[in-house]
C-alpha cells in the first residue's frame, strides 16, 4: 500500500517536471531502498511511507545537494541533515530534491542555475522563492509536505504564492545541522504542507534540540497535532495597520481584511498594534544577511568540493575564477554587498548599525506580544508575479519580503495559510506571527481558519 503511494509521487513528479521544473533530482533508487527498509519496519511510525520533497540545500547522504548552484552542481552530500535523519526514522521517504534560487538568494526561483520553476496555478508566473520547488511540489499535489529553508521569508512567500501552508519555526526549534549555511543568524529549516495538519505532523517529527547544532535550543516539543482543533475564541490577534499601505496590492488587502473578519467570526478579538521599526526590516536584512553570506560562502573555493575553474595558473587565480564562473549574478551581488558592509571603514556605518536596528525590530515584537497572542499581516504584498517581471531590478525583488523578513530578524515563528484567490485565480496568503516557541498556537489558529474558510479551488497543474 505505502509502496504505491511513494511510486505514485515519483511518477507524478516525473510527469509534471517538464512543465513545472519543481525537482532538480528525482531519487528513484533511493526510494526503492527505503521501501525495502520500511517493509521490515513498524507501520505505526508517525510518517510511515510518507513521501516528502526536500529543498536542494538540505544535505541528503549520497544524493545530489546542489543548492541550485553551478558551483555545487554534482555535489553529493556526505551525510544527512538531522531533519532528514529524523524524517527517515519516522518512516518518511525522500523522493527528490527541489529547485531553488541559488543558495536560497531570491524571491522568485529565477536565480536557480538549473532553470526557473513555474507556479502550478499559472505557469507564466513564478512560484516565489527561494524555496519555489518545494512549494510547487506540494501545490501540484506530488507530495503532501516538503522541506524548505527560510532566511527572510523563503518558505512563507512561496507558500503564499502557491496556495499552500508554509511554516517558519522559532530560531532554534529545528536543527540546522546539514542545512547549507547562507546567513547563520537568520537561517531556519521550514515546512510546506498541503494542509496545516501536514505541517504540524512534520514539525513534530523534526523539531527539538540536536547536539550537532549548537543553536538548537533545549525546549520541549509539544504534540502539535493534539491542539490543532482548540478553540480560538478569546484569542487576541494584533493587526499592524500602519504597515498595510504603500505597495500592498488591493486584492491582497481585501482578502486579508476578510480574513480578519473571519477570525472575528470564530471568536477571536482583533486589536490594533504598532511595529514602528518593521519598515526598516528589509534594510537591516540586506546588510546582515549579505554580511553573513559573504563569510559563509567563502568556503566555495574549488578545493574541497564542487566546481573548479580549470584554466588557472596559480592558487589565487583558481579561487577567483572558480567563484566567478561558479556563482550566478544574484549570489555575486550579495557576496559583494556583504563584503562591502563588513570592509574596513564601513563596518560601524552598516553592520553595527543594522545589528542595533535589528534589536529594535525584536523589541517591537516583544512589546506587541504583551497585548496580543498573534499578529496578522499579508504574507506577500502581491500575488505571484510574471516570470521576468522583476528580474532586472534586484531592489524591487527584495521589497517582496516586506512582511516576512522581520520574523527572521526577531527569531519568532510565523505561518502562511491560504486566504483566498485573486480575480486572476492566483492564491493569496495570510501570515500569522507568534511569540517565541508558539508554533502550537500558530498551527491551531491556522488550522481553525483553514477549517472554516478552506481554499476549495485547485491549481491548473495538479497531479490527479
Amino acid at each position, binding site marked *: 500500500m505505502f509502496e504505491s503511494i511513494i511510486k505514485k509521487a515519483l511518477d507524478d513528479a516525473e510527469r509534471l517536471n517538464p512543465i513545472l521544473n519543481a525537482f532538480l533530482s528525482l531519487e528513484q533508487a533511493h526510494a526503492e531502498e527505503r521501501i525495502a527498509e520500511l517493509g521490515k519496519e513498524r507501520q505505526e511510525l508517525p510518517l510511515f511511507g510518507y513521501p516528502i520533497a526536500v529543498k536542494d540545500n538540505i544535505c541528503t547522504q549520497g544524493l545530489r545537494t546542489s543548492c541550485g548552484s553551478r558551483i555545487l552542481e554534482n555535489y553529493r552530500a556526505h551525510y544527512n541533515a538531522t531533519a532528514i535523519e529524523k524524517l527517515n526514522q519516522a518512516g518518511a521517504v525522500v523522493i527528490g530534491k527541489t529547485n531553488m534560487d541559488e543558495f536560497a538568494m531570491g524571491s522568485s526561483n529565477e536565480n536557480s542555475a538549473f532553470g526557473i520553476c513555474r507556479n502550478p496555478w499559472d505557469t507564466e508566473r513564478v512560484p516565489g522563492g527561494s524555496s519555489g520547488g518545494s512549494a510547487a511540489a506540494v501545490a501540484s499535489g506530488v507530495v503532501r509536505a516538503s522541506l524548505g529553508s527560510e532566511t527572510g521569508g523563503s518558505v512563507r512567500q512561496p507558500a503564499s504564492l502557491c496556495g499552500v501552508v508554509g511554516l517558519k519555526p522559532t530560531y532554534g526549534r529545528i536543527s540546522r545541522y546539514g542545512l547549507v549555511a547562507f546567513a547563520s543568524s537568520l537561517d531556519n529549516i521550514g515546512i510546506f504542507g498541503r494542509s496545516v495538519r501536514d505541517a504540524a505532523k512534520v514539525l513534530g517529527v523534526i523539531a527539538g534540540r540536536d547536539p550537532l547544532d549548537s543553536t538548537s535550543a533545549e525546549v520541549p516539543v509539544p504534540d502539535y497535532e493534539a491542539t490543532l482543533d482548540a478553540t480560538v475564541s478569546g484569542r487576541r490577534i494584533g493587526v499592524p495597520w500602519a504597515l498595510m499601505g504603500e505597495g500592498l496590492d488591493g486584492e491582497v488587502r481585501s482578502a486579508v481584511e476578510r480574513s480578519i473578519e473571519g477570525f472575528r467570526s470564530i471568536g477571536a478579538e482583533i486589536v490594533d498594534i504598532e511595529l514602528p521599526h518593521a519598515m526598516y526590516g528589509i534594510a537591516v536584512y*540586506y546588510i546582515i544577511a549579505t554580511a553573513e553570506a559573504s563569510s559563509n560562502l567563502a568556503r566555495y573555493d574549488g578545493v574541497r568540493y564542487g566546481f573548479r575553474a580549470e584554466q588557472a595558473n596559480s*592558487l589565487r587565480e583558481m579561487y577567483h575564477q572558480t567563484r566567478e564562473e561558479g556563482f550566478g549574478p544574484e549570489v*555575486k551581488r550579495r557576496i559583494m554587498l556583504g563584503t562591502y558592509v563588513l570592509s574596513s571603514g564601513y563596518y560601524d556605518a552598516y553592520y553595527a548599525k543594522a545589528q*542595533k536596528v535589528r534589536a529594535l525590530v525584536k523589541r517591537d515584537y516583544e512589546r506587541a506580544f504583551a497585548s496580543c497572542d498573534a499578529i496578522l499581516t499579508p504574507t506577500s504584498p502581491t500575488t505571484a508575479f510574471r516570470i521576468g517581471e522583476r528580474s532586472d531590478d534586484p531592489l524591487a525583488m527584495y521589497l517582496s519580503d516586506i512582511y516576512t523578513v522581520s520574523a527572521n530578524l526577531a527569531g519568532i515563528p510565523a505561518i502562511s495559510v491560504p486566504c483566498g484567490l485573486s480575480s486572476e485565480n492566483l492564491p493569496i496568503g495570510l501570515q500569522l506571527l507568534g511569540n517565541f516557541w508558539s508554533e502550537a498556537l500558530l498551527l491551531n489558529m491556522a488550522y481553525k481558519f483553514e477549517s472554516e474558510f478552506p481554499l476549495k479551488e485547485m491549481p491548473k497543474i495538479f497531479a490527479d
Partner: protein
Amino acid sequence: MDVKKVAKLAHLDISEEEVAIYTPQLAKIVEYVEQLGKVDITGVDPMLGGLTDEGQATDTMRDDEVIVSSGQEWATCEAPAAVEGHFQVPKVL
C-alpha cells in the same frame, strides 16, 4: 562603491561588463539601506545573533571524547582534484 575593489576582496574575478551592470544596482541597494541612518539607536545594544533566551540558556558543551573519524578518503572524495587522501591545488609559490 568601488565594485572592482570589493570584487577583489570577495575573490571574484568579475569582468568589465559585470562591473558596468553591478555598479548602479549595488549603488541603488546601498542607497536604500542608508535609510537606517534615520533610526535613533541611542543606548541600544546590538543584537549579535539570532538566539532566543532559551537558546542562550541551552548547554551546548559536550564531553571531550575521541570519536572515530571518517577518514581522509571520505573527506576528499568530493574534491575536484585529490591524490592519496590529499587535496590537489595549482602551484602556490
